[in-house]
């Protein structure tokens, strides 16, 4: 007889953990995919993979970056496998609720729009860093880049957003 699962990997605690983290995971996937329906598919696949691999998660505190990593890989895999069309930056409409947009902070809305329009190579590490809490070394490892390349991408991502925030762009880096 198989021993009963214990700790995080038990079915019920693990399910609760996934339920709790699902909104953050979906938000992360939305920013990566710029398309909610694709993001929901990514999250669905992520949760299934996480469920199958739940024995690997030893520390519940590490669940968030663990899930985000799975989601990022799943997102990349989805694009490789399905050859999904890339999103035309001029037609990005992910933030499309006009009622909420007018209710909220217009500057924040503009900033969201600018993040949406960042090229994937800038947006992905930025979202991993700010929303996912990954260090530059972790991002480099995950994206298969040097840490210097990650620093450059993050610098350029923020530099593009500075003007939206009313700041002068900094001199570009080599």
């Amino acid at each position: 007889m198989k021993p009963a699962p214990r700790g995080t990997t038990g079915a019920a605690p693990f399910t609760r953990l996934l339920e709790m983290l699902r909104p953050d995971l979906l938000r992360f996937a939305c920013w990566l995919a710029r398309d909610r329906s694709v993001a929901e598919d990514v999250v669905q696949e992520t949760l299934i993979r996480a469920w199958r691999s739940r024995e690997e998660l030893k520390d519940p505190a590490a669940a968030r970056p663990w899930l985000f990593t799975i989601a990022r890989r799943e997102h990349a895999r989805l694009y490789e496998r399905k050859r999904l069309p890339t999103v035309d930056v001029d037609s990005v409409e992910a933030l499309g609720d006009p009622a909420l947009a007018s209710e909220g902070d217009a500057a924040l809305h503009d900033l969201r729009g600018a993040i949406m329009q960042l090229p994937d190579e800038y947006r992905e590490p930025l979202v991993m860093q700010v929303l996912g809490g990954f260090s530059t070394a972790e991002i480099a490892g995950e994206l298969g880049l040097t840490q210097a390349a990650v620093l450059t991408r993050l610098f350029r991502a923020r530099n593009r957003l500075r003007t939206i925030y009313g700041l002068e762009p900094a001199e570009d880096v080599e």
Partner: protein
Amino acid sequence: MSTPDCRHARLHIGAAPHELPAEVTSHLAGCAECRRFHDETVSLDARLRSALEVPLSRFRQPPPRTRRFALAASVVLALLVAGGAWLLNPRPALAGDVASHVIHEAGSWDKQQVLSGADIDAVLHQAGVKYDSSMPVVYAMACPFHGRQVPHLVVQTAEGPMTVMLLMHEKIAARSEFSEHGFRGVLLPAGDGAVAVLSRGAAPSESLQREIVAGVN
């Protein structure tokens, strides 16, 4: 930017303002220009975080779901058997909408004075909802939500103040917990509709959830 040190510092500041190497921190102590750049970037980052932590409801909902790629039937079955049936239910945007609503009525949490039965009844009547709270109600407002007036209450409980939204026009299939905008909460089927219970601290206990739902039934 003038010196190689400044260029090096700004690369790190612009890339990772919260992860600066020691030499950049030292440089900042003696370079006012880079310090200003750092302060600006930290300020930008706070806005950036707010922007990225967008309520899920702001991401356009997909059309009625047609799966873009099928799951292997064996995996689905395994998940169902393992008690993971919840995975197959598309998460309602309802939780995000409720949390977004509550975040805009931040003052409601600080109310202390217990409202009279007449005050509460007036709000319930305005929303066309019946509810019998067993706990003191310190805030009651009929709020526009999804095109209806819904009672938005704050009740004092042994677990601290809880926001209760009586969503009698919302159908949900099952209880689901959520965590949005710093709130922990739960959506509960109640009567013909739903009740949302939100806390700023720990999620409401199951006994408290039952007690709140009992007011509907």
